[in-house]
């Protein structure tokens, strides 16, 4: 801790801020990385601010988070230079500091810090005298024994981690080779299916599709990652019909697919659905004669509707609402009726398409009026 020196917290000329992260421990502060220094500022007392030059850093390493422990970055430092300005501690027996990331951000910060360490921009852009302390390790410099011991231990630990990772990568590569074989095989089968054009049984096609689904291979014929048609999606469609009935009724019979995605996955907690799973299951709703259906608006927005919901009828009531108020924007309409702005806009657009409303498009926004050209001619 004796490497720190008090600073006013102002960046010197030529220094630029690289990244900042809150929640660093020396009791709750913010850590800022500049091209020249590592700065720590207390969150409560903004006057309390300290820093040290990046050139003081020998080596950095990550410590992953554990139960009850936040992720950390350990920064190993050179001994303090004799002409260093005053800081929070006069002397310290440790030659490293630990930065504890209580509010995450450790991955990005580590990446940026490593980048700065490699680029060493502080060497190209000298700042004011007060910061020019260490100029980095010079050849032939006598290092304190403690540091050498630490470095050796760290090196060993890093080799160990590297070994684990490289073993993982090796195993992963072997796995990928096998996966690639599966991909080739599936292509060949798909070609056969295409050639035969209907001589293959429906059952076999379904089987094939479920194999593709398990592996995550895109269907070579349709290019979809296993479009609808597997038992999984059929099952899922039925589940969705059950889960979504009440929420749909509560929301006026219509919900955007994004809302559905969030609702369903929040409810599940684990074994979540992928966006594609959801879309593929929804595509089957109508075919399975379930009480919901998937609808795609012209704009590309996808929604789930109750079968009993007639958007066209809602348009009539939308026309009434707009006429009452003279004119409405999507936001105003959404607020009046109590629906999301996205769906409100779609309803107004549909009303326009059907000829009931016309638009006034200006920089102030998109406003809808009853279509008097139709009603009063």
């Amino acid at each position: 801790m004796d490497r720190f020196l008090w600073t006013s917290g102002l960046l010197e000329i030529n220094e630029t801020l690289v990244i900042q992260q809150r929640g660093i421990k020396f009791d709750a502060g913010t850590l800022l990385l500049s091209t020249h220094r590592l700065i720590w500022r207390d969150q409560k007392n903004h006057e309390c601010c300290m820093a040290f030059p990046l050139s003081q850093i020998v080596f950095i390493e990550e410590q992953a988070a554990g139960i009850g422990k936040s992720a950390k970055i350990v920064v190993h430092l050179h001994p303090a230079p004799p002409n260093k300005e005053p800081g929070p501690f006069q002397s310290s027996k440790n030659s490293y500091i630990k930065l504890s990331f209580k509010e995450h951000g450790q991955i990005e910060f580590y990446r940026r810090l490593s980048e700065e360490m490699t680029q060493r921009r502080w060497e190209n852009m000298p700042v004011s005298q007060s910061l020019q302390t260490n100029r980095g390790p010079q050849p032939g410099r006598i290092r304190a024994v403690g540091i050498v011991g630490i470095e050796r231990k760290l090196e060993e630990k890093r080799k160990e981690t590297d070994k684990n990772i490289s073993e993982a990568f090796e195993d992963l590569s072997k796995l990928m080779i096998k996966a690639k074989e599966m991909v080739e095989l599936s292509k060949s089968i798909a070609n056969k299916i295409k050639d035969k054009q209907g001589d293959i049984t429906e059952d076999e096609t379904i089987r094939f599709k479920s194999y593709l689904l398990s592996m995550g291979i895109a269907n070579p014929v349709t290019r979809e990652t296993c479009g609808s048609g597997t038992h999984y999606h059929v099952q899922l469609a039925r589940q969705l019909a059950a889960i979504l009935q009440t929420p749909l009724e509560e929301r006026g019979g219509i919900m955007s697919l994004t809302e559905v995605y969030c609702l369903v996955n929040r409810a599940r907690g684990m074994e979540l659905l992928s966006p594609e799973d959801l879309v593929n299951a929804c595509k089957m709703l109508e075919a399975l004669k379930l009480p919901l259906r998937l609808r795609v608006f012209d704009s590309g927005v996808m929604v789930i509707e109750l079968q009993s919901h007639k958007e066209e009828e809602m348009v009539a009531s939308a026309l009434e609402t707009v006429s009452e108020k003279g004119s409405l924007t999507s936001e105003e309409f959404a607020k009046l009726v109590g629906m999301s702005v996205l769906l409100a806009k779609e309803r107004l657009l549909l009303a326009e398409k059907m000829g009931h409303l016309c638009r006034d498009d200006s920089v102030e926004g998109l406003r809808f009026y009853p279509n008097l050209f139709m009603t009063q001619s």
Partner: protein
Amino acid sequence: MHRRRVGAGAIAKKKLAEAKYKERGTVLAEAQLAQMSKQLDMFKSNLEEFASKHKQEIWKNPEFRVQFQDMCATIGVDPLASGKGFWSEMLGVGDFYYELGVQIIEVCLALKHQNGGLITLEELHQQVLRGRGKFAQDVSQDDLIRAIKKLKALGTGFGIIPVGGIYLIQSVPAELNMDHTVVLQLAEKNGYVTVSDIKASLKWETERARQVLEHLLKEGLAWLDLQAPWEAHYWLPALFTHLYSQEITAEEAREALP
């Protein structure tokens, strides 16, 4: 000279030959399907073994995640396609990214009224981290990008726009063409752009510049500042937090930390 085959007999023979050929074809496909099924079972157990040895490590190491995804992409496999896929079931890849998807949607929705549905990747990252809380696993910006790419399937306008050195994430179905993107890039430096800026840097006529700016205004992505000196400034709220991190004095640092 080849004697032409004619007559009912020849036709019948031809039909028989075709039928036999088709039968052969069916048999071949059936055999291949059976082979695939067997290989699939074997692959599944290989994956299980892999997971039991390395699953923990994988999810602590974000570089590994990147490598993993890249390797899958190279061979034509999408581990995030379905929650029912082997990758998801055994390595737990799916839950991580799908949950992240939900969190991204929620953050974008919460900030939409402010920035019109356009946000920097950096700000999204900070907000998502905050939402996840202290005990959740850390996520990298690469993780966010992959989750967003998957969200595109939901059809509601998620997009990733590279602008200068940063990424903007679009979460509403606003139409942004090349002209709009280029102007966004221009705005990145100062957080705003003027008609003169556009004419000077991009050499467009006034009308073209004005149309682009009006579109951004209409979509709620830009704010009009008529009180700026000389001429109207078009500010992009999406870039505000990005601006804060560029220049910092003791004063602004205090303000910028929300």
